[in-house]
């Protein structure tokens, strides 16, 4: 690729051009081929086609990453594809935008997606609908790529809705299962709430800036600070309103506090889906969005504080719930929720690099954990309850080892100043950033909650490991005896991810948040003039960098005591008065589902029933279609009865008809006179 003087040029050379298009459209091609012709091609061919396309896309993504992010080349590559729509001032082109941020996302999405594709060959081996599954996976990948390569708000919204749709379809992939259908609908509906805000945000952006092109909006954003706009009848700061609305979309997609309820239920989908969509890629779209829109968010301290508040609360809340869950996938799901909270905190305090860095490392170890959990589930014949596991480390040693790597990475094992697993770098960077952020209640709050969450993360992760792999087995004899290691096609992706979980932090820290920051991002992440967080982080006190490590170690210790050394303790602790209530509070996920059930679902059902029985049944059916249909039937019967077959009846009707017409016809003139005369008399003005 060129190293010439065209570094500033926005037009890359033809090969790169083709490469970016291939990255975007290979998954789409795979989806179309297997989606429409999968049945004819057969499952095997579908698997091979989609996997091959995805692997090529993944390799190309790494090349793109090295060229865009690691090389000293053009900051932003834009490839216009076609004019999408024009309506009044609104003029939207569809183009591929690749900068450092996009390149990171391309790597994350395509790497994890291709590994999940390969893994699924093994995991879904017995499923009869594999072509459909692979088509969905590839189509999801396309939508996600469309999201991260977007150059306008509308294109981002397209990808945003596309991934939402595919998430819905994949959660409900086993549509025979009522619980899967319910979970799919829940995910879709909860996301609608967020998307509503997102859509309003886009409308607002257009109303304020008269365009929805990123670059134009970003350039104009500083001029709008201090402006006010009317929203819901009040006057509010323009940028705050816009950012909060846009962030609402991020909250839905990234399952943040209050809109998080769909994510644990989404575990009804096949495990590879959980790994790809509900851990590594789609749920991080919210973080990506905030980072992408950093030029907007930087203009509103209020919005940033809100982001911190929500992120920290989610990190803490999800971790507490994760402590007591028994379904192996749900523990990891809450963990995901919690880690997403970390990323938002990072973005909220202005450390976008740290947020994206955590997104990057998290993709590796969380996908690893999910796929590892899938391997366990595969081995245990679709048993997901950890209470029925235990002692599996000897049975499935590879899976155990790889899960161990994932756990070490997630809990952030490492020594400050020396090095550690991937999560160590990124998570601790976030906690540090939260500490040094401007003295602000939200940030103090965030730091405390994040350290507590780090402790709990460690606890529930080790709890998962111990309950699943160690101690006496609680599985029934038969299942335990037949537990078997997964095939190589599933283990190889795990090994690749494990390598990432070990090395991604150490390898890329310098680029994402360290010395190479400016060189790496090339302005893709915006920092306002008052944003000095990257400087401040260098001067944190020693205890702050050790705090998460201590939290991590004590979490491990507690888990070891409770699940290895003294296995009777958990039951005993739960039985204690006082603890009991907390336990059920956590087990029931802070009663959010119940709350929403009573606040939203029950009234909605009530309203629905009212409209159904009262509105539809009584009024519309009774007086409308059904009522009319009934009267039509009545009229029909009398009309048919009139048709007696006797000629004299017919002749009579004709004569009546002509008489009637003649009468009416002759009447009006006289009748009018009569009426006008009567009226004249009435008002005393008659002759």
């Amino acid at each position, binding site marked *: 690729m060129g190293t010439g003087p065209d570094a500033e040029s926005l037009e890359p050379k033809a090969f790169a051009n083709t490469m970016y298009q291939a990255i975007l459209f290979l998954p789409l091609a795979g989806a179309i081929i297997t989606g429409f012709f999968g049945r004819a091609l057969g499952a095997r061919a579908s698997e091979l086609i989609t996997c091959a396309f995805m692997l090529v896309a993944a390799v190309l993504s790494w090349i793109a990453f090295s060229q865009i992010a690691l090389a000293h080349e053009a900051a932003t590559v834009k490839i216009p594809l076609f004019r999408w729509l024009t309506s009044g001032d609104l003029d939207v082109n569809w183009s591929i935008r690749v900068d450092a941020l996009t390149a990171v996302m391309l790597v994350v999405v395509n790497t994890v997606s291709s590994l999940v594709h390969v893994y699924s060959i093994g995991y879904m081996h017995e499923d009869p609908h594999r072509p459909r599954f692979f088509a969905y996976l590839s189509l999801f990948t396309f939508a996600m790529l469309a999201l991260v390569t977007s150059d306008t708000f509308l294109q981002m919204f397209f990808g945003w809705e596309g991934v939402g749709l595919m998430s819905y379809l994949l959660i409900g992939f086993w549509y025979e299962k009522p619980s899967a259908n319910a979970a799919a609908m829940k995910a879709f509906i909860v996301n609608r709430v967020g998307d509503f805000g997102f859509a309003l945000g886009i409308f607002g952006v257009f109303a304020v800036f008269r365009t929805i092109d990123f670059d134009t909006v970003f350039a104009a954003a500083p001029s709008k600070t201090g402006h006010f706009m009317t929203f819901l009848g009040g006057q509010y700061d323009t940028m705050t309103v816009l950012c909060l609305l846009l962030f609402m979309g991020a909250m839905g997609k990234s399952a943040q506090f209050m809109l998080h309820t769909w994510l644990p239920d989404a575990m009804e989908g096949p495990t590879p889906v959980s790994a790809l969509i509900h851990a590594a890629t789609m749920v991080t779209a919210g973080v990506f969005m905030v980072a992408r829109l950093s030029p907007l968010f930087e203009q509103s301290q209020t919005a940033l504080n809100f982001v911190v508040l929500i992120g920290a609360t989610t990190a803490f809340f999800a971790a507490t719930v994760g402590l007591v869950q028994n379904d192996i996938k749900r523990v990891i799901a809450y963990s995901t929720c919690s880690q997403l909270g970390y990323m938002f905190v990072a973005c909220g305090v202005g450390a976008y690099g740290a947020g994206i860095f955590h997104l990057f490392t998290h993709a590796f170890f969380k996908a690893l954990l999910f796929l590892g959990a899938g391997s366990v589930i595969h081995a245990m014949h679709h048993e997901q309850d950890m209470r029925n596991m235990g002692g599996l480390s000897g049975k499935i040693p590879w899976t155990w080892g790889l899960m161990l790597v994932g756990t070490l990475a997630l809990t952030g094992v490492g020594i400050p100043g020396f090095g550690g697993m991937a999560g160590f770098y990124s998570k601790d960077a976030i906690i540090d950033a939260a500490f040094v952020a401007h003295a602000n209640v939200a940030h103090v709050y965030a730091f405390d909650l994040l350290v507590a969450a780090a402790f709990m993360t460690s606890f529930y992760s080790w709890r998962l490991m111990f309950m699943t792999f160690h101690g006496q087995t609680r599985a029934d004899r038969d299942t335990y005896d037949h537990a078997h290691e997964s095939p190589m096609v599933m283990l190889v992706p795990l090994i690749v991810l494990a390598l990432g979980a070990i090395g991604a932090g150490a390898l890329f820290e310098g680029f994402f948040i360290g010395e190479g920051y400016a060189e790496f991002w090339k302005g893709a992440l915006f920092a306002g003039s008052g944003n000095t967080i990257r400087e401040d982080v260098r001067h944190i006190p020693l205890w702050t960098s050790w705090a998460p490590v201590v939290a991590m170690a004590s979490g491990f210790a507690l888990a070891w005591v409770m699940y290895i050394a003294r296995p009777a303790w958990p039951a005993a602790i739960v039985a204690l008065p006082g603890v009991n209530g907390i336990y059920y509070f956590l087990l029931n996920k802070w009663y959010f589902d119940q709350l929403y059930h009573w606040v939203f679902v029950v009234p909605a059902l009530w309203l629905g029933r009212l409209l159904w029985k009262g509105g539809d049944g009584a009024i519309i059916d009774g007086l409308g279609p059904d009522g009319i249909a009934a009267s039509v039937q009545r*009229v029909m019967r009398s009309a048919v009865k009139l048709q007696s077959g006797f000629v004299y009846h017919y002749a009579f009707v*004709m004569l009546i008809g002509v008489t009637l017409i003649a009468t009416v016809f002759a009447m009006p003139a006289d009748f009018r006179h009569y009426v006008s005369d009567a009226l004249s008399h009435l008002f005393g003005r008659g002759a």
Partner: protein
Amino acid sequence: MLTLLDLLHGPLKPEILLVVSAMFLLMYGVFHHDPRGGNVSWLSVGVLALVAFLIAYRAWNHPGAFDSSFEGAWVNDGFARFMKMLVLIGAAGALLLSFAYFRDVGGMRFEYPILVLLSTAGMFMMISAGDLIALYLGLEMQSLALYVLAAIRRNDVRSSEAGLKYFVLGALSSGMLLYGASLLYGFTGSTHFRDIAQAAHGMAGNVPNVGFLFGLVFLLAGLAFKISAVPFHMWVPDVYQGAPTPVTAFFAAAPKIAAFALLIRVLETSVPGISSQWQQIIVFMSIASMILGSVAAIGQHNIKRLMAYSSIGHGGFALVGLAAGTEDGVQGVLVYLAIYLAMTLGTFACILAMRRKGQYVEEIHQLAGLSRTNLPLASLLAALMFSLAGIPPLAGFWAKFFVIIPAIRTGQTGMYILAVIAVLASVVGAYYYLRIIKIMFFDEPAEAFQPMPRPVRFVLGLAAAFVILFSLYPAPLLDAAARAAHSLF
């Protein structure tokens, strides 16, 4: 003084050709022993085609030609040519449909095609009528042939009954019409439409007197009988059901169009000045026909009887355009009639395809599961039903569209109400058309029908193609109808 030779070179060529051919074929049938009527039938179709050619030739060479003869009692303008073409298509289509039918059920006589020719000649007279005498002559010439046609299967009780009923009630309606005509003559002193128009215009204060109005009412009652408008529709279900199916097809196609032509011409040339008066009658008959046609058809089990009510309803829809009283409205009526002609011929072709072992069946439930025994037939019939129901993009939708839009354009409240009722009636009417589709596509299949005879297949193919493809290239019909309507104003 006109001589026969003058006439032959004059504008009356098509009519003279029709009548002379009918006489010639009659003699050919008698002397040449053609009791099955095979040759006569085909020759009749040929005659109709030749007449159509003559008219088309005239229209092609002199697009706006206005011919008249017999002191204006006979006029041939663009409107007349348009309507005559429709009548010819209807008559020829009905003849094509009848060959196989009469071969199967027996009772074919060479008089049948000759009667069709004669009634067609009568219809030509009606369409070209420029005064009351010509009107009555044409009407009776047509009707007498039709009475006989309805009863042509004289061994069949239903056929005879149909013919008799039609005759008795037709005579009654003729009586009314004559009474009306004599009143009009008495109050205006002329039988000529244009003179009547002037006389009506010149009446005191531009308000026609009651005697004149009564004459108009009776005249309209007689014509309403012919277009089967409510409340003069009572004969329709019985005659449609009783008459042999090809004859029913002929009734639904040709005479109805001729009667509409006559109605339009009478109203637009003899009483245009008092349109606010006769509009009320038209609106009343239109609403009553649409509602009765839609509602009563729901209860029918016999498909011919159903088509009878359908025909009443469609007559009501066509009247919506006439009620508007504008040039656009008349154009809409003409488009409506042309499309209705195609739909009705196609549907009757399908009805004639309903035969098993040489027996014709007419019950709707016999169509059950047709999609599985004969998918092409079921699909085409479904398309025709959708079109009759007025579902876009089929022709039937545009037919309704072009009569309702002019009614709305008048901007009168009454016309809005009429348009709303028309739309509602078509919703109700859609029910029974869709029911047929439901029976064909979703019910358990009954025994398969015999393959269709070739002429029937030909008519069905043409009609269905027109109905399905009309929206792709509607301009020729719309333009022709616009020109025809323009010649009246």
